[in-house]
């Protein structure tokens, strides 16, 4: 029976694109290009809304729970931090206070929630090394995070090596059956000597993360005592639970009872002899009895059915993915740091996640459509997928004048002076 539970939450808000795509003026600066690419007023609206429904009440709740022996590992994307610093500084203050608690631990998260690991593993390694210090500074933590999570908990053989090169002691992995095979997720694993792998228990995590307010689910309504019982009856050393922080108040509204559920869970778990640990405490406690886990060459993720199909499963997603690649390549040619940074922002997994519904139906498509900004639907489904691609195309074109040595052909001059005819 598992005696320990480790709860990991991740906070993220995407930097949503501006649709319809805005044409970018020639010779535009990186700052003005960004204004054309991203819909900051919309990002502000969503951040303020989620701050009200989730970030403020959830942080208040976790603060109380930490005092009662609950332990929380918290990953925060820089995409969220940038927005919260601008538009909800009180939320940042609350989170800093939460992380200052001895029962909380900061987890390093891929800063932009991007697919950089697919395009440039070296740059990804550098980003992950950099973000540990950056998050420590921005969140006012005493120490750098030692455990890492990647975008959508992507993990593969090469990503593991990149995290090892970035200096992490631990990393998170979703415990999909096709990765774990006969193994239990309730142990610590390793591939090389480090990082150690904390395996998210998919079923027990999704019972709360996805199914909690689903009245069609056989487990509904889920009560704290029943869930604590499920945790206690699980085999293994330690159960790792992974949720979006937005689970509390946003994905599951207050009326669903998610807050009282969590408040009672601590007592119900304690009654059953369960203790809570942070991610690094799990490693500390169990690293000597960790097991070898062969990592897949194809990446696994906590999204969708656990493979990249959730992000690259339809032709439009594949087209946007290719455009992400072209955008990054073009930005790299400019050698301008700010433009390369914009190209990485454009790699946000959300931009693929939000169009998973294209040509699809079913539960995953519903999740994808739920995350698609409400305002975009006015354009119509076809225009959404076309305009997302136009954002990338406009960006790639706008970089023409930033590539050293580029000179535009003056077609008017050529026609007027017969230069084309002469050729």
């Amino acid at each position: 029976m598992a005696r320990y539970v480790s709860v990991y939450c991740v906070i993220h808000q995407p930097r949503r694109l501006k649709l319809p795509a805005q044409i970018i003026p020639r010779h535009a600066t990186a700052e003005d290009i960004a204004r054309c690419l991203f819909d900051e007023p919309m990002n502000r609206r969503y951040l303020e809304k989620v701050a009200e429904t989730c970030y403020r009440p959830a942080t208040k709740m976790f603060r109380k729970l930490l005092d009662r022996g609950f332990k929380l590992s918290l990953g925060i994307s820089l995409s969220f931090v940038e927005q919260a610093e601008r538009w909800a500084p009180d939320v940042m203050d609350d989170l800093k206070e939460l992380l200052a608690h001895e029962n909380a631990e900061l987890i390093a998260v891929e800063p932009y929630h991007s697919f950089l690991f697919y395009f440039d593993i070296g740059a990804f390694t550098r980003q992950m090394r950099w973000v540990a210090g950056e998050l420590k500074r921005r969140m006012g933590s005493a120490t750098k995070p030692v455990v890492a999570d990647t975008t959508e908990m992507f993990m593969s053989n090469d990503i593991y090596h990149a995290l090892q090169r970035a200096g992490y002691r631990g990393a998170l992995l979703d415990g999909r059956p096709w990765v774990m095979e006969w193994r239990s997720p309730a142990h610590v694993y390793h591939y090389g000597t480090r990082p150690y792998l904390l395996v998210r228990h998919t079923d027990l995590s999704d019972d709360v993360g996805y199914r909690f307010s689903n009245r069609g689910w056989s487990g509904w309504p889920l009560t704290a005592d029943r869930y604590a019982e499920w945790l206690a009856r699980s085999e293994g050393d330690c159960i790792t639970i992974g949720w979006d922080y937005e689970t509390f108040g946003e994905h599951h509204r207050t009326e669903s009872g998610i807050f009282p559920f969590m408040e009672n869970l601590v007592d119900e778990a304690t009654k059953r002899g369960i203790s809570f640990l942070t991610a690094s405490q799990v490693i500390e406690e169990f690293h000597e009895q960790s097991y070898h886990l062969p990592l897949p060459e194809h990446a696994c993720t906590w999204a969708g059915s656990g493979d990249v199909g959730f992000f690259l499963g339809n032709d439009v997603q594949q087209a946007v993915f290719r455009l992400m690649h072209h955008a990054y390549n073009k930005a790299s040619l400019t050698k301008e740091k700010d433009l390369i940074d914009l190209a990485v922002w454009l790699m946000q997994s959300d931009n693929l996640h939000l169009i998973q519904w294209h040509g699809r139906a079913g539960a995953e498509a519903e999740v994808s459509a739920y995350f698609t900004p409400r305002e975009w639907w006015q354009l119509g489904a076809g225009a959404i997928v076309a305009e997302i691609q136009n954002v990338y195309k406009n960006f790639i074109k706008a970089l023409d004048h930033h590539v050293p040595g580029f000179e535009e052909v003056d077609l008017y001059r050529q026609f007027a002076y017969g230069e084309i005819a002469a050729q």
Partner: protein
Amino acid sequence: MYGPRQQKLSPQTCEFLLLCFEGPDEYSLAGGLGVRVTELARTLADLGYDVKLTFIGDPQKPYHEGEERLNLYRWAQWVSRYYPAGVYDGEEAKLAEFSSSVPAHIVKLCRETLTRGKVPIVLAEDWHTAGALCAISDMLHLEGIRSKCLLFWNANTTAGFHRIDFARLNFCATLLTVSRFMKHEMWKYGVNPIVVPNGIPSRLVTAEPPHKEAAELRGALGEGLTLFKIGRFSPDKRWMMAVEALGELVRRGVPARLLMRGGMEPHGGEVLQRAAHMGLSIVDVPLERGRRDLKNLLAFVRVHAGAHIYNLKYFVPEEVTRVLYLGADAVLANSGFEPFGLVGLEVMAAGGVAVTGATGEDYARNLENALVVETEDPWELTLLLQGLFGDEELSRHLRAEGRKTARTFVWERVIGDLIHRLTYVGQKQGALSHRAARPHSVGTAPKGAKEKAARQRSFRKVGV
């Protein structure tokens, strides 16, 4: 007492928030729209209303400029800096920025107006503003203040109609247009706008017509029939009809000449080629030493007396066009498609004889205050002009009646009409009265009009 007293729109009860792509800056003036919104805003302010005009302004000027009652907001200046050639340079980039960021700005202004206890009247002009206006309506709904604000969208032209979601726009705002012709054009889209005509500045009718200068012009040109035409080189303006009528007059022995000012459009080449083909002599009037004044024009005309067409190659300022309007025997504003036809009205204001087309020119009545051509047949125009030539009494009558008509279209009078219409909508919506708002639509085309219009669409421009 016959019931509860209804609140009326007045400078004490409402404020105007105008939205337009064009505006008063030189950078923002591309055509009639900029002139319209500038004059409308100024006259409203002169009448005591608080007016806030948001437009694509000169990027070199301040974002916000406020006079006592008239406040200007120059929008999308960061985009405009990349497009120095004018308001429509980089149109799509500006449109995207305008549509996405203007709504929050207007909603903020609406909130401030409501805080002052007044009704915000948002009046948006032409297709560029349609998307933004719908978003404004949505945001006002979200804030719970939509019913307290009046939203109007005005069509000055049919340009860009293919990019408007009329069903949505008609749901979000009350639609206005400038003529009955436009109203009927818009029936095709399933909407029934309220007509409020365009206006002209009162200075055009209060100023004494430039009789002395007009006499000088006639003296320089000599005996015969003098015609003047100004406008873009667009087939809609019926330039071909004008030169063919001139050719026919000359063929019939009338000593006629045409002073013309077109644009840079390629259709101008076709027009001049047609004139030359008809044997008409053409002289270009160049801009010499930057002088656009009448003296320069008269000197040129005296030297080149006897030409059939004087083609002015430069922008003609208002003081000179007024002389040409008055000094010519007729001004050819004979467009085949005119949402309103401001030129005809300006001719009337200057005391000239306007020859108008028969589409949006609601103000024009044939042989009463103008000459009106019903077809694009040059013979019809020839006949009217030949009838005018030598008929001093008709000319005097048309000039006098034209001036009278123009006086009824000055902005001060038009705004009276506008306020009346807006009050009607405001009271129906419940924003102005103490009565509860009732669900109501003032914007649905008469039953069957859309289908009828679709059947007739192909006959719109067919002449006799």
